[in-house]
């Protein structure tokens, strides 16, 4: 069902892009793009209009996610550039609203995040992979694994807390993490 050069597709995505361009600029700014937001949204459109994709179910979501991905890549490159040029661990104040030092800089921290996730066991990992990698909605994960929706929600919370470096409160519901 690939529709290349399809007039329907080009009005679909294009129409949505032009209707929401300002919202996307605002979103990019909110994600930390600063003054580059306008240029970035152009760059975004250039790439998307050249990409060969089939019909898109949620054009607006597609655009927002593409914008967010763009910011992730910018942060990744900025972090690598900082490391190559050498950085102070102390206060790395940057031109943006917040310091790059607040971003994860060391490979090691990512290795640790993955370890913390894996330490939660097979099922949490499986739920995370189905959700984050396979893009399966939570309801469907629950059905496929034969567990409740609330169990899926809890597993995802645990997974993301591990990735974020928050302490795990798996034993006995303390959902607000007051023990921390």
């Amino acid at each position, binding site marked *: 069902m690939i529709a290349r050069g399809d007039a329907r597709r080009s009005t679909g995505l294009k129409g949505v892009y032009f209707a929401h361009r300002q919202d996307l600029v605002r979103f990019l700014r909110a994600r930390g793009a600063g003054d580059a937001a306008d240029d970035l949204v152009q760059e975004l459109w250039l790439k998307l209009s050249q990409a060969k994709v089939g019909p898109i179910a949620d054009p607006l979501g597609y655009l927002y996610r593409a914008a967010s991905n763009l910011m992730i890549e910018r942060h990744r490159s900025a972090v690598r550039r900082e*490391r190559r040029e050498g950085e102070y661990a102390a206060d790395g104040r940057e031109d943006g609203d917040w310091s790059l030092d607040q971003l994860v800089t060391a490979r090691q921290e990512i290795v640790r995040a993955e*370890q913390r996730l894996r330490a939660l066991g097979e099922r949490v990992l499986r739920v995370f992979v189905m959700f*984050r990698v396979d893009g399966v909605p939570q309801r469907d994960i629950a059905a496929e694994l034969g567990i409740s929706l609330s169990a899926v929600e809890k597993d995802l919370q645990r997974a993301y807390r591990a990735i974020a470096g928050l302490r795990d409160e798996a034993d006995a519901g303390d959902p607000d993490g007051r023990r921390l």
Partner: protein
Amino acid sequence: MTNEQQRTHQAIDWLIRQQDPAFADWAALTEWLEADAANSAEFARLALVDAEVAESVAATAPARQIDRNEGAHAGAPGWLWENARRRWAVPVGAGLAAACALFLVSEQVTSSRSLYAVVTPPGVRQNVMLSGGTILALNGGTRMMLDHSDARFAQLVDGEASFDVVHDAAQPFRVEVGAAQLVDLGTRFNIRKTADVTELEVAEGAVQYSVKGASVRVDAGQELRATANEVRLAKVDRSAVGAWREGRLVFDSEPLADVADDLSRNTGKRISVDRRIATMPVTAVVQMPRNFDDLPPQLEKLFGIKVRSTTKGWILTPSD
């Protein structure tokens, strides 16, 4: 709960919610990001770590059955694939599988690999012996994929490992490093892989290194250094290969920033470098002491720098 923990919880909630294909609250997410610069920063941090972890985990997860007749794909565009260093780009948002379905299906459904990960935190080493007697010595901060169904295979994803391979001409030992394939020709060798560079040093025997149809044999006493753009061979002191296993780190004209990375991997300490000396070449042999906190004076003398200790780790600065 502190403000910061609350903020992290909120960021997690947003990250999870926007991952759902049906999510449409982009305006509300924008407002939350705008409400406080720290919200934006925390979201950026989490999204980055999430993307990296998801990518790493995706490389080893078995492929889901993809229905090829799936209609509209909700996935975000795959221009991230163009970056040669990354095999599976993991977008924020729904449907990595939808976006990369063809790659995942063709690679993993047809291959019979049953991969598992061995991961060491920085500063912690681990030896793995495969059946047949080949020994892999993993340095700290390393991620290696092995195969339950194939004891003659390893994939170094990140970090450093030394290989002591029991030679078998009928079933050569193969190592994958990024896009490159290494085949053992009867050897002891060391591989170090970071995001930008792969370094292979051969102590004994030879290794055949192949990437993108080009192939080069690396003999004992040789080192191969591969970046995205080029591959170079150089001489190396055979006794320096894998010397980290004996507590020796050997540097030959390495930029101080890379030296700091190696020290981090071996000690688990977070080490930063003043940008004024980041490219300073270092030629030295560092003998690792029993207690890593004894290292700074040695580094100061060897490199002619000052080492500042903070709660977060060490900072290497010029000695003026």
